[in-house]
Every structure is written in C-alpha cells, then in structure tokens.
C-alpha cells in the first residue's frame, strides 16, 4: 500500500527536513510554497484566536512512500518542524491508488524506487 505524506511546515524548517528525508532514502519529494491558516489564523504571537483569518506563507512537502515507512517519515518531519508554538504546521497521510513513472511506465512500488 502506498501512502502520500503531505506536510505543511514553516519555511525556515524546509532545508533541514529535505536534507533528512534525503538521508532517509525517500524516493523523492515535491515542494511548493503555499499559504493558509490553521489554529493560528495568521496571528504570529501566542495561542490566540482572532476573528479575521490572515493567510500566512508555509511550505508544503509531499512524499510518496510504502505504508511501512510512514511512521518513520512522520517522526522525522515532526521532530524537525516542531517549535512548540502554534503555526508549526500539519502532516496529512493519504492513500495513493497508483503511481506511474512516466519515463519507464513502471507502476506502483516500482515507480517510487
């Protein structure tokens, strides 16, 4: 079973996370700059809700791995992205039906190795 790990993290944490993921032998990552709000609602101080949501920039890192690898990857990202304050981000895990490597037509697990 393949899973997608979708991480929304602080921009400042990205380089270190990418480096560690590479060392952990993930097949690849996709990174994009995104904006959004969560509990923080755009507020940059302590945990305090404001009524009007402001969008703050974050980085999204998407990784496709085999199910057995999921917990390992989560703990890498979690440890590196955590500051303990609101706005650290979120990690989502989703099922992936199939993967195709365009160059070789390989499918499924073969396509991410």
């Amino acid at each position: 079973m393949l899973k997608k790990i979708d991480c929304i993290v602080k921009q400042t944490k990205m380089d270190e996370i990418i480096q560690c993921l590479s060392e952990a032998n993930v097949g690849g990552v996709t990174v994009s700059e995104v904006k959004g709000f969560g509990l923080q609602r755009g507020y940059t101080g302590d945990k305090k809700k404001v009524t009007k949501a402001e969008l703050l920039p974050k980085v999204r890192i998407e990784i496709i791995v085999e199910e057995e690898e999921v917990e390992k990857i989560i703990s890498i990202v979690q440890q590196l992205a955590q500051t303990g304050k609101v706005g650290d981000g979120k990690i989502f895990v989703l099922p992936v039906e199939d993967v195709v490597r365009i160059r070789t037509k390989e499918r499924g697990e073969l396509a991410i190795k």
Partner: protein
Amino acid sequence: MVSKDKRTPYEMAVQQLDNVARVINLDEGIYKKLKYCKRQLIVSIPVYMDNGKVEVFTGYRVMHNDTRGPAKGGIRYHPDVTLDEVKALSMWMTWKTAVVNIPYGGAKGGITCNPKEMSNSELEKLTRRYTSEILMVIGPEKDIPAPDVYTNSQIMAWIMDTYSMNKGYVVPGVVTGKPISIGGSLGREEATGRGCFFVILDACKCLNLFPEDSTVVIQGFGNAGSVVAKLLQKEGFKIIAVSDSKGGILNTKGLDTQKLIEIKKKNGSVVDYRDGEKISNKELLELNCTVLVPAALENQITEENASRIKAKIIAEAANGPTTPEADDILHKKGCFVLPDILANAGGVTVSYFEWVQALQSLFWSERDVNLKLRDIMQRSYKEVYSIYCDKNKKINMRLCAYALAVSRVAEATRVRGIYP
C-alpha cells in the same frame, strides 16, 4: 471483584446496573430483562490426566445478552472460577462492547482448574473437551470466545481446531486471540495497551495537560502496562515508576521503557533495573504523578489508600482496580478516572477486528488496525466525556460510561421488542 465485600460478584454487577438505571431512568421492563443472563451452560469435562487417572472439571459458558449482536467474552482457567463470577463478567462484557459501540453482546466462560499444575497435553484435552461440550452455543454468528486469565493464543487455536473439526470445515471466526498463522489479527497483542494510551491522550487534552510536563506511574508491566509505557514515552511523557508482582522501581528523572522491557524479558522482573530506587507496589500508587495506570490486579485502589492518591488521571488498564468506595473518594478529590470498561476496551475492539477479518477473509495491515482502533477509542471517549459534561461533572466517568452502555443496550432491546 471486591474482596472485603460480602456480596457476590453477580450481586455487585446487578447493584451497578441499579445505580445506572436510576441515572438514565431505565424502563422497568428492560431493567428486569437486563438483570438476568440469557443463558447459562454448565458442563462437566472429564480428562485423562498424565497419570492415567480421570479427573472431572466443571466449565461454564454464560451469555448475558445478544441484543446488539453475537455475544463476546473471554474464557478463563482458574481455581476460583464460579458460575456467579462468570455471570457477573458476562454482564460486564455486554456493557464493555456497548461502550465502544461494536456490534456484540456479552458472554463469558471459564473452567475451574489450576492450569499452573497441568501439563500441555492435559490442557489441550481439557480445552478440546470443553469446546465440544459448549459447541452448540458458540459460533461466529452466536458467541465468540477469546483469551482471558491463564488462557492464550494456543488455547484459542485448539478451540478453533476442535470447532472446525466438528463442523467439517475451517471456521476461523469462532474465536479471537488466535495466532497470526491461522487468522489472528496484527496489532492484537498490543491492543489493550494501545487503546488505553489513546484515551489517556484524550483525557490529557481535556484537562489541559501537556505530555512534556506530565509524569506517569504504571503498576504492572505485563502486556498492557509495558505497551502503555512505551507509547506514552514516545509521546513525550516521563515514566517515573513502574512495577510488577516482584516490586517497583522509581526514578523521578525518568525511566527508559525500552531498557525496562528488555530487563523484564531477560530477568522476569523490572526490579533489576539499575538506574532507580526500589519501592513497593503500595508506595508506587501514592506517588506524585500526572497519570497513574493500574495495569495489574483488581482492588488496588481502595477506601484505605484512595485519599492518598495524588495522580490527576487514573487510567484503568486492568479490570476492576478501583473499589466502589474508592471511586467516590477519588471523584470528590477531583481525580479523573478513566474506567476499565473504556480504558481497556482496546482488547475487545481488536478482537472484533479479528472476527471481521476472519469473516471477510481479507486481512488488514497493522497500521490499518491501529488507526481503526484509535478512531473507535477516540469516539468512545468523546461520547462518555460528553455525558460527563452534560451531567455537570457531578457523576464520575465510570457511571457515565455505564450510562452510555446501558442506554445503548436498552434502546436495542426496546426497538427489537420482547419476543414473542
């Protein structure tokens, strides 16, 4: 059950039902029905012992209720097993499966015997003959046994084999807690501890307690206790004391659960852990901590020591660690008790998953099992806690869990009606 109490376990179970009936205004007719067990089967089990002589044991299988689905409950082998106790435990299983809202009723079984003095072949003969004697009342769509005190996956395998041989085809869904090789579920071994871990996290969130500032004391380092310790430590909690039957070990700076598990495996006890001071099981319960997990025996927290307990949360991984008198004292003190029927329902929940997988002959990954378990535990916690809030926190979480469970069974009874 409660040792000092003169009431029998079944009388106490009925008393518990009485208390809940008052809280939820239970219909009198339904109360009457729920008070009794649907079926009680007593069998004698002759066994050729290794010395060539015949011994006859007494076995029981009691079904308390199957209104919400087939009955479910363990089988225990113990010298103190009585019909009265099995009846009480079967009623208790009805509530437990209802709290977590899995489609089961409640049952329990047992054999009055001393498995510690029996050989493997005697145990096999005992198990197979007992299974044959209760064959007409068990089955994947009727009543599904599971392991309990002094019964294990090997015994479940013998039950499955005996049942299948008698039927003439393989029936993996007749029993749960089987070895993986014949249809056991991944994650079953850790399920009780993991379920307890999930409700502890939920409780901490409700009480605004953070893992990094929280300390944990665990009584009992067996299957449930060691898993709770391992998972909580991973989450950032500090495990300051653990114990087993030989005694306890304390280090306020924190213990290394991985080392404890290794030492327990190698030497049979956690007391050989070096980096800590030895304490007794009794002292351990009264330590200053955030979360106390009784994961050993019944009746550990009593009216005698309840007032000295300092934990903010008590998560009952064991069955019946707190006496009713202690419950009242703890509630008045503001100690938040996660009751056994909720806190250790992870075991029966993954048993349910094992049965579902057996019926569909399609097996899930361990991750899948653990995630589904988390969903059920979190949902159940939320439902019990919302009753607790509705009642303005005036009744304890145990009564709330029972209220939820009995209401579910009562509603199922009402809507099905009394036959004919």
